[in-house]
């Protein structure tokens, strides 16, 4: 049989090609499996690096630089990094895929069924030169030898793929699950649906969460001030007029809550109240109203907190200075007008001002007071003003003894009525009595003791009038008894008035012994039928009375009252209340005249009454029962609590400067009222923390603040173990 020489391709046995096709298929499957594995590994590495980077950013970097790290960076940085990791992994691992060749595939197949490397040789030859015709015999041998191996290898592809892919697949799925779960949790937390307890949230913690971004603060002063609103960029402390509306506007997600706490003097336990959020198109805002004292506004989200301290400044009353009149005076005449001049100043603006004139008339116990306003002027918001006018004293209808009080009064635009007004010093002008300028030198004499007489006579009159009104209904016995009682009281009063009738040189009235009619002394009066009458020869001048001090004056109205009381007493003894009443009225009128009578009495020089202590010492008869004195409580020590907080802030400054600054700012505001020196020292500490000075300087300022608080005192050297006096 002759055979023609066919081309190599035509001579290749179908079994040889099939073997190559199988090998090529298996090679492709291996490449695919490894390629998918590389992809899964790369993705897993990428997701893992994303998670790790985000943890690193929130745990380590954000608490320190939270003001500078915006939320999008928490997304962008991990994304870029993870993509880089994925690319690097693919680049580094893909070469493994490329290293899978037909020969290596054949070797792998050989592992599943021995062909004594016939398959490998076959593949190598094929790969080396595809145009070389292999021998048919070799092909048949390879085909039959590798059939089983090929079958086994195909069957092993599945398990191989499972082993190679499951691990990375689980890792990738798990990493993605962690990432998604964290995002969901963060989103839920940001929506504020978690309930938190009311305890104070520590400042700037180090846990996961998104810190509060910088906010803007708008301060709108009260309307009455007319001041424009101002807006400040991210700030932690503002000063605002009491009543100002302070709005905090944030551009990021809403905080979990915002609390407002006010501080009184020494009151650091004031309860906080939650502020209400105002709806905004984007972001959030809350509004608070400034008060006279400091306020703390605290915004909290997750474990982060941001503080705004509001130093409320009270609207001060206008300051008024009275330029004229310069001093008080006593005026003899009231014809000349009085020039009034005042300078006014207010921090926000004056609205009105005037001079207030108060005129007091009367003397002794009876005064009348009237108030007039002169020189009123509307000032329409000027900060400084001058008020001038002329007071026409003649128009005030002043009489001798009247006193005129003048002061300037100014009001600002603050609508609160209970604030009062700004007022100047008061100048007083007294209108002199004509007799003050008499040339007669008169000894200073206290006012006669007629007040009691007046009071008692008035009461007696009232009682007699009541008895008279009831006399119709009363039995005669009862009427007589009550009338006699009134008569006895009237008699007593008459005797007391009798003592006051005489005024002696030394100012005594009763003297060592009571004077009575018929006691042998010439009093200048004589008794006629029980009444007193002036002796004709002794109506003026002094009466020498032997050992007693001479009588300087005889109080004529009291004399008249004495006599009227005599008549009234006699009528009452006869149960004739109706007849007694006119006499009693006359006595009352006489006593009033005696009180109203002008008497010379130099002001500022009280009567020289020196108590004879030896004589009166323990002469009182009443027994006493003094109660025990309660212990005084110790003064509260605010400084110890403040020192504890200062030391806590000092230890916090080393690890969390922002939190330390917030704590110190709060402490400073609380100390402004009662410890200004300590507040000033804290300002220095805050400044050093803000400007990032070296730690030695910060420490020195902390130590100085502690010293200012009074906690450290250097004592003089002393041999006494308990120390010396400061």
């Amino acid at each position: 049989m002759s055979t023609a020489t066919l081309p190599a391709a035509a001579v290749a046995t179908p079994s040889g090609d099939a073997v190559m096709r199988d090998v090529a298929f298996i090679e492709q499957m291996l490449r695919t499996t490894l390629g998918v594995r590389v992809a899964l590994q790369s993705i897993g590495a990428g997701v893992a690096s994303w998670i790790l980077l985000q943890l690193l950013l929130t745990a380590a970097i954000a608490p320190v630089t939270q003001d500078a790290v915006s939320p999008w960076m928490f997304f962008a940085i991990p994304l870029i990094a993870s993509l880089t990791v994925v690319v690097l992994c693919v680049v580094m691992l893909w070469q493994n895929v490329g290293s899978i060749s037909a020969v290596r595939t054949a070797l792998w197949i050989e592992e599943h069924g021995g062909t004594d490397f016939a398959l490998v040789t076959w593949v190598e030859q094929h790969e080396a030169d595809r145009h070389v015709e292999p021998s048919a015999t070799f092909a048949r041998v390879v085909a039959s030898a590798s059939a089983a191996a090929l079958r086994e290898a195909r069957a092993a592809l599945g398990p191989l793929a499972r082993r190679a892919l499951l691990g990375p697949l689980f890792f990738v799925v798990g990493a993605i699950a962690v990432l998604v779960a964290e995002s969901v949790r963060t989103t839920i937390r940001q929506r504020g649906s978690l309930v938190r307890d009311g305890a104070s949230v520590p400042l700037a913690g180090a846990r996961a969460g998104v810190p509060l971004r910088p906010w803007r603060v708008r301060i709108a002063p009260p309307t009455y001030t007319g001041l424009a609103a101002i807006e400040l960029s991210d700030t932690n402390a503002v000063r605002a007029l009491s009543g100002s509306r302070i709005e905090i506007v944030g551009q990021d997600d809403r905080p979990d809550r915002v609390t407002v706490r006010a501080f009184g003097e020494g009151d650091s336990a004031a309860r906080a109240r939650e502020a209400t959020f105002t709806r905004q198109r984007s972001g959030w805002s809350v509004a608070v109203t400034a008060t006279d004292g400091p306020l703390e506004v605290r915004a909290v989200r997750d474990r982060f907190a941001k503080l705004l301290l509001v130093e409320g400044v009270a609207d001060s009353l206008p300051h008024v200075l009275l330029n004229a009149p310069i001093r008080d005076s006593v005026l003899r005449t009231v014809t000349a007008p009085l020039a009034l001049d005042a300078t006014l100043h207010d921090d926000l603006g004056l609205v009105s001002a005037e001079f207030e004139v108060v005129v007091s008339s009367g003397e002794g116990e009876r005064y009348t007071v009237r108030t007039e306003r002169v020189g009123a002027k509307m000032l329409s918001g000027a900060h400084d003003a001058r008020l001038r006018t002329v007071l026409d004293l003649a128009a005030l209808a002043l009489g001798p003894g009247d006193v005129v009080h003048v002061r300037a009064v100014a009001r600002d635009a603050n609508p609160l009525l209970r604030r009062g007004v700004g007022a100047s010093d008061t100048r007083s002008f007294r209108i002199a009595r004509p007799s003050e300028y008499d040339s007669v030198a008169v000894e200073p004499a206290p006012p006669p003791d007629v007040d009691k007489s007046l009071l008692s006579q008035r009461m007696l009159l009232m009682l007699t009038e009541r008895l008279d009104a009831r006399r119709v209904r009363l039995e005669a016995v009862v009427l007589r008894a009550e009338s006699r009682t009134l008569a006895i009281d009237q008699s007593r009063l008459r005797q007391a008035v009798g003592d006051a009738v005489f005024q002696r040189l030394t100012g005594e009235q009763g003297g060592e012994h009571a004077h009575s009619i018929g006691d042998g002394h010439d009093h200048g009066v004589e008794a006629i039928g029980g009444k007193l009458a002036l002796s004709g020869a002794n109506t003026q001048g002094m009466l020498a009375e032997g050992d007693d001090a001479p009588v300087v004056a005889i109080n004529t109205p009291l004399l008249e009252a004495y006599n009227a009381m005599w008549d009234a007493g006699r009528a009452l003894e006869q149960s004739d209340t109706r007849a007694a009443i006119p006499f009693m009225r006359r006595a009352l009128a006489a006593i009033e005249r005696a009180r109203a009578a002008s008497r010379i009495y130099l002001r500022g020089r009280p009567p020289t009454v020196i108590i004879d202590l030896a004589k009166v010492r323990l002469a009182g008869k009443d027994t006493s029962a003094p109660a025990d004195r309660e212990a005084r409580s110790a003064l509260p020590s605010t400084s110890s609590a403040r020192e504890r907080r200062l030391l806590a802030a000092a230890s916090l400054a080393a690890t969390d400067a922002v939190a330390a600054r917030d704590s110190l700012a709060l402490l400073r505001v609380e100390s402004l009222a009662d410890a200004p020196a300590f507040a000033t020292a804290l300002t220095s500490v805050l400044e050093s923390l803000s400007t990032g000075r070296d730690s030695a300087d910060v420490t020195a300022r902390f130590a100085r603040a502690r010293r200012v608080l009074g906690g450290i005192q250097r004592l003089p050297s002393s041999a006494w173990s308990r120390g010396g006096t400061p």
Partner: protein
Amino acid sequence: MRSRVEWLARTVGVGALLLALISAVTTAWRVGSPLPRRVAPVLRITAADRDADSAVAGAVRDAIVQSVVRGASAGPQQSALSATPTVQLHVSSIPSASVRAVLGAAARAGVPVSWQNASGVRALAVSVSRVPTPATASLLSFAATTEGPGPAMSVVVRDAGGILDSIAEVQATSTRSMRLRVARLQAPLRATMMRDDDVLAEAEAGGPDSLMMRRVRMYAAPGWEGKFVVAALEESGWNVDAAYQIAPTATVRVGIPSTLDTSRYAAAIVMDSGLVSPRGLRAFLAQGGGAIIAGDALRDPALLALTDARIEDDRAVIAGALLSDQPRRGIPAVHLVVSPRAIVLEREGQDVVVAVTRRETGRVLVSGFRESWRWRMEGNDEAATAHRDWWNTLVAAVAFAPPVPRATDAAAGGTIDRAVFWPGDDAPLADLVARIGVAESLPFSQTTPQSVASWSFPLWLLFLLAAVALLSEWALRRLRGAS
């Protein structure tokens, strides 16, 4: 090129590891080997070696171990002296308590320890005690003595809350001391003596014992002085008992005035005569109580006799002084002449105004000031606080306030109080001397002092180098595609 780089990286990594190994082994060998006495290296203790983990402490510990081992194996004929390790120290910084304890243990184990004090510190001591007032104030005292030439040192006193005070320059060969009253001490207290940034010595004291506070008994006639002094003491937290006789049969009591006894009273203030019997006061002093004799009580010879003082003359009031920085010059006072054993607390120039003395187990303070209430009323705006503090100081100077008894561990036979045996951290130099003896004044015979810690190679650096080199080699190999 790449394979050469890999070889280079591998060589560097392996070499660094070998070097670290050699360094560790030789260090141990060098430390562990017995040093012949004559050529014993001097261990230098600097500021860096004050720690228990320092190489010095390790070297000394090894010396102790070797001493024990050699002592156990040495025969009766063998001279232990020639084989016993010694420790010679060149101290330029007084070591901490743990290192001192190790040195003391070495000395007690029979290891001869000698040392040279090159720190310039001759003494440093602190003490803390509670001020016997209702407020929990503490009294701190510290003293430092330096010697030798050299730049000035500084002493910084701090507690857990920060720096309390400092002495900027303690010149060489001088003693400086300071006494502080700290309202709220945060233990422990540390006094650190430094030169530039080096710590030369550090003394430490714990918090003071709490005291049992008692009441104050006031003997005063009703008047402004009695009222304002009692007010000042009560505002400071004291409980005061007093009885003001307003009339022969009328007395206003404050608290429950009782017989003077230290079970109830810490101090008695006597401002008027005829209100307390001198015998009763003497008995109170014998119990340990404190007394303040002031004002009109100075005119009672029996009371004055308790004070070891006598009145010299009246001192005129200086107008305007109440508003100055010496306000007490503006209140009436008498000058005193005190006995030599009394301690003067306050002077006006050369004249004594306040002095205190021990009387039996008690304390008696005599104050020549009268009408101190004028300081509070007529002084400046801080006068009320200053008046209160001053009276607090006077009472604290004499008050009887025993410490609160501490529960002892009786079951364990009681704790050994370190202070019983050693001065402790309160006086570190004294503690060191107590443990290892007085410093040698001559320099050691060793010509080449060596510091154990000076030549030890930083192992961590070698490890880092090895890690970086090996990792680089691995990375390069992987990039090349090799397995």
